[in-house]
């Protein structure tokens, strides 16, 4: 009887039921679309991280340099001459040093510690370095007061400028352990010639060269390259997407550590979590296990992103969410009002049923049942609309761009920030304005490299959780509308209901 009565009643007021169901469907469809869009934006943010630091990288760990770690002496003149005093004119200068790029260092033990944390699928260390070469002869011209020093970029006199050829290349020390595959910027690279680095290369002087750098420097497989006065054999050319952090040379981590004097140390740890859901947990565990480190994942990266990904995120999280809530609230209100009005029209009917011995609970159940069916039909249509909405977002949304700017500071591996900071610290060397010198272009290029712009496709995947939420909302809509209507029907005294004139 319950179902017969329910279906007949819904058929009788099919138009009103359709309006309620469509209202709920619209609200639920919007909630699903916005939720899908929101998770799409989150995926896009994750994609940005992957495109920067490796396909499997969910988290990067870096460390702020400690005070004095990058003192002017580290540049190398002190080491080369043993004194900050200006060398005699005519002295030949040939400096080639490999130094960390503005990041603090962590030990290999730290990498192992991270790898052992719960929910960590893999962890790999990386050492991003800069190899700086300066060759030339100390000029005879005496600058006297040394006016070029503080100019930081203006350069010295003409003769001086012509005497040195400072060049700099970026070098990435790559963890070659098999567990590290898929982590780090090199994992994004595509081998265009030769071979890639193997685990057995860890102590060998072999290098991969970035395709763009190889082209400009005319380097091919089989050629040699000098890094920190050590001759490396180029075994392969690798092309890294423009969006990723690319380096001129990729050498085995062991060699990078040895040549930079950072034995057993890394300055970036790339971490893969065992699932997307555990990224936050893993991030927290790392922060707890390694104090004073900077842990970055797609969520923390999101706040530093600029570009249309950030706009889409703001759109989905602010406008979209509130719009969905408003439409859903309006749909619930409409459903409740229409159900109550339908109950008001059936007062005599319910009064009669009460006279026949139907108790209030049975009548409430009937009204709630009707509202629930309307809600579920609305929910079903809403899920369909949600899928349609998310498909439309996927189809029509333009590719999003995300820029990770220099504001990321030292947390951006690559260490280019120290070059972007302005004049190069020249120590006690008067008139040394390297930014203005012939090698300055290279420095500037690295400085600009601190801004990574990547393009990601925005998709809005409908998750099972969103569908469950839709069903819950539909049931809630039905219960609210039916509950209010039923309550109104139940509280009527039969005599008053029967006396009501229709």
């Amino acid at each position: 009887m319950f179902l017969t009565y329910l279906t007949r009643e819904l058929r009788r007021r099919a138009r009103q039921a359709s309006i309620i169901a469509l209202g709920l469907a619209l609200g639920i469809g919007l909630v699903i679309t916005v939720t899908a869009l929101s998770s799409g934006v989150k995926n896009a943010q994750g994609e940005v991280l992957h495109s920067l630091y490796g396909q499997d990288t969910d988290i990067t760990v870096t460390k702020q340099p400690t005070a004095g770690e990058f003192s002017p002496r580290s540049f190398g003149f002190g080491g080369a001459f043993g004194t900050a005093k200006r060398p005699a004119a005519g002295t030949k200068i040939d400096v080639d040093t490999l130094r960390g790029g503005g990041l603090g260092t962590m030990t290999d033990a730290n990498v192992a510690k991270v790898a052992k944390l719960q929910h960590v699928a893999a962890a790999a260390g990386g050492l991003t370095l800069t190899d700086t070469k300066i060759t030339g002869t100390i000029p005879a011209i005496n600058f006297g007061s040394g006016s070029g020093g503080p100019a930081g970029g203006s350069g010295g006199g003409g003769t001086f400028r012509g005497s040195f050829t400072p060049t700099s290349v970026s070098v990435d020390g790559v963890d070659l352990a098999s567990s590290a595959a898929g982590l780090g910027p090199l994992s994004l690279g595509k081998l265009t010639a030769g071979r890639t680095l193997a685990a057995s290369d860890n102590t060998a002087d072999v290098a991969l060269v970035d395709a763009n750098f190889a082209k400009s420097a005319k380097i091919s497989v089989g050629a040699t390259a000098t890094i920190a006065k050590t001759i490396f054999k180029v075994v392969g050319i690798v092309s890294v997407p423009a969006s990723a952090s690319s380096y001129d040379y990729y050498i085995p981590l062991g060699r990078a550590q040895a040549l930079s004097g950072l034995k057993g140390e890394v300055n970036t740890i790339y971490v893969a979590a065992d699932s997307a859901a555990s990224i936050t947990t893993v991030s927290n565990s790392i922060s707890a296990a390694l104090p004073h480190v900077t842990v970055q994942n797609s969520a923390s990266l999101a706040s530093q992103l600029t570009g249309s990904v950030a706009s889409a995120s703001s759109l989905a999280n602010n406008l979209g969410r509130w719009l969905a809530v408003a439409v859903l609230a309006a749909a619930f209100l409409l459903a409740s009002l229409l159900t109550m009005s339908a109950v008001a029209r059936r007062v005599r009917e319910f009064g009669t049923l009460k006279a026949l011995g139907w108790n209030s609970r049975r009548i409430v159940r009937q009204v709630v049942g009707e509202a629930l069916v309307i809600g579920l039909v609305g929910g079903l249509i809403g899920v369909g609309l949600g899928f349609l909405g998310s498909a439309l977002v996927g189809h029509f949304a333009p590719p999003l761009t995300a820029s990770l700017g220099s504001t990321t500071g030292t947390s951006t591996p690559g260490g280019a920030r120290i070059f972007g900071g302005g004049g190069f610290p020249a120590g006690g060397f008067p008139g040394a304005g390297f930014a203005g010198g012939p090698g300055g272009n290279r420095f500037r290029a690295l400085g600009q490299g601190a801004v990574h712009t990547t393009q990601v496709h925005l998709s809005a995947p409908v998750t099972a959780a969103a569908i469950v939420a839709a069903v819950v909302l539909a049931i809630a809509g039905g219960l609210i509308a039916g509950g209010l209507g039923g309550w109104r029907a139940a509280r009527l005294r039969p005599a008053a209901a029967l006396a009501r004139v229709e």
Partner: protein
Amino acid sequence: MYKLTAVTKDYYKGNVVVRALQGVDLDIADGEWLAIQGPTGHGKSTLLQMLGGLDRPTSGSIEFRDDHRGTDLAHLRESQVTKVRAESIGFIFQTFNLVPTLSAQENVETALVPLKVPAHERQQRAAEALDSVGLSDRARHLPSELSGGQQQRVAIARALVKQPPVLLADEPTGNLDEDTRDELIGLLERLWREQELTMVLVTHDSTVARRAQRLGVMQNGRLAIRRDRQLAPDDLSGSGATSAPPLG
């Protein structure tokens, strides 16, 4: 079946108190047919509602005896009153009050729903009830597809399908033409006799009232018995022995 003692009912319209029943005392014997006449607004329907447990009196008691069990409907819990209605009291209304979306058969079945009668038995009993009012061929029709007389027959079948000891009828012929009225009263009289019902019938129609065993008149909330003919159902010829004043 009923014993009403000093029953009053007050309604409040703003600050004004309207006394619909003013100390009604009434005994209704088992198997009795009582007709109640009276002008509109003088408390006939209110009295019927008290008898049916559809409303509660302001004061007084309404003792209802069924199967040697006595209960005071005035002070019974709502759920208990609902149970009494479901098991022991059948109602017929002037406007038939059928559920418009349900067929004749399904409307009759609604009276068996609170008794938790299994579906199969429910259908069978509803079909028998419709047959007893001569409507077995209209079982699948919706109320809108039936005439007024047919709708009231469905309502009678609905009221009696649970075989209650009491049938309360509020102006059952009020919306019917004379021929249909006579036909329907004949049917009610037959069923009253066959099922040994206690029947209370509120009516404006003297022709209908005349057929009853006993006639009460409501005026200003007070009940006066005008004719008290304690006859067994079999003694009733249907012509009406004494004439009652045409009221209402």
